[in-house]
């Protein structure tokens, strides 16, 4: 992450990012190493103050992408560049899905929240640290009086608040949230989401929000990236993508999303999802071809490049869906 960028407002630029993991062979005497591509050729930009939602089903590479952006995984190919004024460990912070597991059980809330300061600003004096602690605990809605307690003494929602307070203590520019609410129940979910939104408006944060809950992503994000098997199949402004999805996968995702409307749900026709093994798929084919309803011969021959659908939307499909004007 040593590349820096000059363009206005762009905090982070991801270019042709590919991440591969070696596959452990079960055979003892295997020849050659096999790799699994968790992400392939992913490119996008993040501008200041924007919330970027990343959606996709399980195994689509969402978490790999988040971890790569946080610097935990080295890209195999491609690069993640950041703006000049950004220090990775201080200005890019992370909120975890499993908030309790991300908190050391032997540390008090005070020690947990102040932990990043120990690494980033070890010389800060005690008074200042306490001031920051109090401020950040109150900011996320925790009681400062409870600072001597351990993480397991708090509820799931409170643990996530501790995690957010810890991430915010270094006053970051970018907050990467990896499914921050999927382990919480619905009422707490809304509170945490609103907290993130409040923090964003108060501090001008840039949020990268990863989730599989589409309605949540639609609510919180300005821009959206749809991942399918490690590739970006569609990206653009949230409303544009939700109202006029260009990729058949995006539309399928939106269609299967439950709606709070019993009439609609009763009349819902289940969408048959084609199984992956229905036809022989060449390595070069479009990743979605096995499940695509609109596939044509071209789709089995090569992977479509991303193309501009409108000024607010890019899609990686040869035959994007069309809508009457």
């Amino acid at each position: 992450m040593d590349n820096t960028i000059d363009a206005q407002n762009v905090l982070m630029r991801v270019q042709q990012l590919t991440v591969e993991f070696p596959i452990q062979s079960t055979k003892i005497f295997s020849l050659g190493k096999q790799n699994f591509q968790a992400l392939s050729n992913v490119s996008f930009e993040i501008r200041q103050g924007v919330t970027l939602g990343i959606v996709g089903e399980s195994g689509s590479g969402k978490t790999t992408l988040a971890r790569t952006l946080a610097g935990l995984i080295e890209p195999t190919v491609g690069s993640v560049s950041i703006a000049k004024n950004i220090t990775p460990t201080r200005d890019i912070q992370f909120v975890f899905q499993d908030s309790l597991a991300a908190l050391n059980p032997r540390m008090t809330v005070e020690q947990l929240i102040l932990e990043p300061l120990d690494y980033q600003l070890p010389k800060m004096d005690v008074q200042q640290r306490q001031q920051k602690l109090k401020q950040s605990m109150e900011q996320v809605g925790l009681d400062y009086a409870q600072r001597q307690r351990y993480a397991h003494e708090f509820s799931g929602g409170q643990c996530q608040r501790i995690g957010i307070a810890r991430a915010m203590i270094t006053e970051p520019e970018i907050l990467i949230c990896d499914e921050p609410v999927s382990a919480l129940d619905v009422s707490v979910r809304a509170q945490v989401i609103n907290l993130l939104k409040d923090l964003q408006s108060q501090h001008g944060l840039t949020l990268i929000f990863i989730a599989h809950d589409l309605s949540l992503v639609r609510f919180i994000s300005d821009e959206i990236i749809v991942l399918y098997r490690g590739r970006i199949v569609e990206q653009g402004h949230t409303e544009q993508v939700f109202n006029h999805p260009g990729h058949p996968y995006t539309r399928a995702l939106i269609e299967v999303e439950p709606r709070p409307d019993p009439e609609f749900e009763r009349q819902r026709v289940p969408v048959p999802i084609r199984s992956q093994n229905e036809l022989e798929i060449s390595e070069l084919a479009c990743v979605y071809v096995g499940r695509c309803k609109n596939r044509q011969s071209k789709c089995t021959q090569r992977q479509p490049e991303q193309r501009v659908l409108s000024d607010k939307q890019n899609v990686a499909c040869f035959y994007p869906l069309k809508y009457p004007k």
Partner: protein
Amino acid sequence: MSGDIDSTILFEGPVESTGRRVWLRLKQNRAALVSMSLIMVVIVAALIGPMLSSYSIDDIDYDAIAVAPSISNGHLFGTDGLGRDLFVRTMEGSRISLLIGVVATLVSLLIGIHYGAIAGYYGGRVDAVMMRIVDILYSMPFMFFVILLMVFFGRNIFLIFIAIGAINWLDIARIVRGQTLSLKQQGYVEAARIYGASHWQIIKRHIIPNLFGIVIVYITLTIPQVILVESFLSFLGLGIQEPMTSLGALVSDGAEEMESSSWMLIFPALFLSLLLFCFNFIGDGLRDAIDPKQAD
């Protein structure tokens, strides 16, 4: 670090260190507390007991050979078959047994924790090579090793420390390595990496404190075990040499005479079991105090 920033603070009081917290919790555990006082008593008795008696460890009282305990002749625990005062010998024996138990355990901890933590934290090839070395050492017969040491370097109490410590660290290394492997996968280790912690900071803050619980439990298992191994060696004539003695040596001597003179077995055996029990209770208490999650 008192919270005098704002007058609205509800929770006042000194900010506690981890050690203080552990102590406060430990104080709640009655069995551990009683055990600690008993061990303190034994330690004090072992240190100053022999000085209070008019006999020394190898004084032979020809007027009182194998006599039962009595206050009148000054032999509180009686005498052994050679007329040596058993009170003095039991105290000396406790001292030696405690010393061997603690020193040999510390030696094996020192080696085992470092070895295991390095193997577990770095993983991969480093781990594989280091743990195969442990496997090879494991396969060496313990008695053979001890006899070899004795033959080469002569009988020496420090050799016993080294021999026991050198065998015991293998267990600790394996346990610590396994624990480290699972600890380094924890979310909070990953979080610390994102917050910019170095390897050393992660090991110091997140790995070692979380190893404490298991290591403490292991210490309490190891100290009594070492005391027993030492008595085994003494029994075979490879351990402590006369006129020096240990609890193990005293018990094995007493066992031979137990039908005619039961006191020769009862007193050393009492002290030995007292020590073993107390260490186990303290270990239980410490584990609960250190791991607040498990105790609740």
